[in-house]
Structure formats: structure tokens, C-alpha cells
């Protein structure tokens, strides 16, 4: 009898990684003496980093075919255009 075991990503390490990034976010937001603009940028980078980890390893986008990845990523530029268009009223 043959049993096939799939090779899975290190889910528990990614969980630990996400937990540490969450702690880093809270420390950055309330403890570090940085300017508001710097905090804003760093917090957004950390949030995108965490979201990317979830999408790549838990939703398995890293292991999917390229065309499914494209399907998943198509809304992101549209979302960026939407927000930039809405903000343009403020910027201009």
C-alpha cells in the first residue's frame, strides 16, 4: 500500500512570523519615538507584508499557476487606481 504525503509549507513558522509582526506593529505605533509620517509608512509596509504572507502561504498563491495568480492580483491595481482617483481631489 502506498500513501502519498504532500509537501506543505512550514505553517507554524509563518504563524510565528505573523505573531511577531503583529507585536512589532503595536510597538511601532505606540512605543517608538518616530514621526507620524514615518510610522504611517512603516505600519503600512508591515500590514502589506503580513497580508502577502497570508496570501502566499495560507491561500497558496505562491504555489498556484501564474494565470490563477494573475486572477487574484487583478483587483489590486484597480483598487489602487480607485483610491488614488478619490485622493486626487484632495491632492490637486
Amino acid at each position, binding site marked *: 500500500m502506498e500513501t*502519498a504525503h*504532500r509537501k506543505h509549507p512550514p505553517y507554524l513558522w509563518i504563524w510565528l512570523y505573523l505573531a511577531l509582526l503583529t507585536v512589532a506593529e503595536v510597538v511601532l505605533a505606540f512605543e517608538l519615538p518616530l514621526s507620524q509620517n514615518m510610522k504611517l509608512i512603516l505600519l503600512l509596509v508591515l500590514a502589506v507584508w503580513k497580508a502577502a504572507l497570508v496570501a502566499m502561504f495560507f491561500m497558496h498563491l505562491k504555489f*498556484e499557476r501564474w494565470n*490563477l495568480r494573475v486572477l487574484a492580483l487583478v483587483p*489590486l491595481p484597480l*483598487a489602487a487606481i480607485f483610491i488614488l482617483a*478619490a485622493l486626487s481631489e484632495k491632492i490637486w
Partner: protein
Amino acid sequence: MTHATIDMMHPPAPAEPGVQAYNLKLGMWVFLASEVMFFTGLIGSYVVLRFGVGEWARPGTVLNIPITALNTFLLICSSVSMVKAYAAIADGDQKGLRLWFLLTILGGAAFVGVQVYEYLHLVHSGFVPSGVRDGSELAERVASGALPAATMGLYGSTFYTMTGFHGFHVSCGVVSMIYLYIRKVLPGKYTRQDYRGVEVVGLYWHFVDLVWIILFTIVYLI
């Protein structure tokens, strides 16, 4: 008994040509793409309102950050337990599937419970969707100038709209998982050859986690 390693994304069911994903999974990805635009509408409106007006309440002055950070961690844990449930059934482990799937449901229900507790606490302190309730503890802080009076209404409406819609999505996920647990997981209907339901509901659940990661930063920390 020999153990072989195979490609982890090998489809558990006949795949549609092109993307090599079965139709349920493809449908879920298309649905999630529409959900990205839905939450973009909410987040984009918040960003425009937040940075289009003057002073806004500073992070941590109204909302309880430690309990929400804990809730964020709880949702991340439930995302891990969901992917462990997926990994278990992909290996044909029914016992592992039952355990991890149940833990995911409990984690999701706990998240909703903590959010309801947070809402009750906020409403009790005077933070309501229309802003600040007259005569409340928060109204006194607004009167003393500790909180900006002009934007508290916008703050209340955007906060409850965004977190409320996310909470609704989490609740829908928990109800779906309870249904699958009773109808499919407990009777052992998922097998190593076909576990589409676990993967598809898992995609939804991870998406809900992903959205919360963004919301936590934008609504609570910035």
C-alpha cells in the same frame, strides 16, 4: 508502506482547462476579487474622509488597542488552524481535519465574541455610530478638548461600517464552517481524493483574515 511526496497544489478534483483549478475554486477566487473591490470602497472612503478633514482622534484614545491586537492574533491563529485542517485532509488524516476544523470554528466564534464585547464597551463609553452620545464619559472628553468634536461623527460611522462589515463576513464564515463541519467533516465525507469544500471555505477564511490585517492597521493603529 512507502511515502511519496507529490505536488501540494495537485488539484483534488478534475481541473478546468486554462487555470488548472476546479470550478468551485475558480468561482471563489472570482468572488474574492469582487470582495477586494468591496473593501477597497470602504477603506478608500475612510482614507479620503480621514485625510480630507482636519484633526482626528489619536490612535488608542477611543479604541482599545490591546484587546484588538489580541483579537487580531486570534484570527491569525484560526487562519493557521484552517490551513492545518487543509493539510490534514490533503494527507488523508480525518482525525486531524476534525480537530483543526473545530479549532478554526472556535477561533472565528471567539473573534466575533470579542468584537461584540468591544462594541458593547465602546457604546457604553459613549462611542456610537453617529459619533458621541450626549452625557457619556466620551462626551466629557470631547467637551474638555481631549478629542476633536468636529470629526467624531465621521470617526464613529466609518469605524462601525468597516469593522461591522468585516464582522459580518467573519460571522458568515463561521456559519458556513459549522454547516460543513456537521454535514461533511464529522461524517468523513472529505477524502484525500476530494476535499474541495475545505480548500474553498479556507480561501474565504484566509481572505477574511487578510482584510482584518489591513483594517487593524488602518483603523486602529494609524
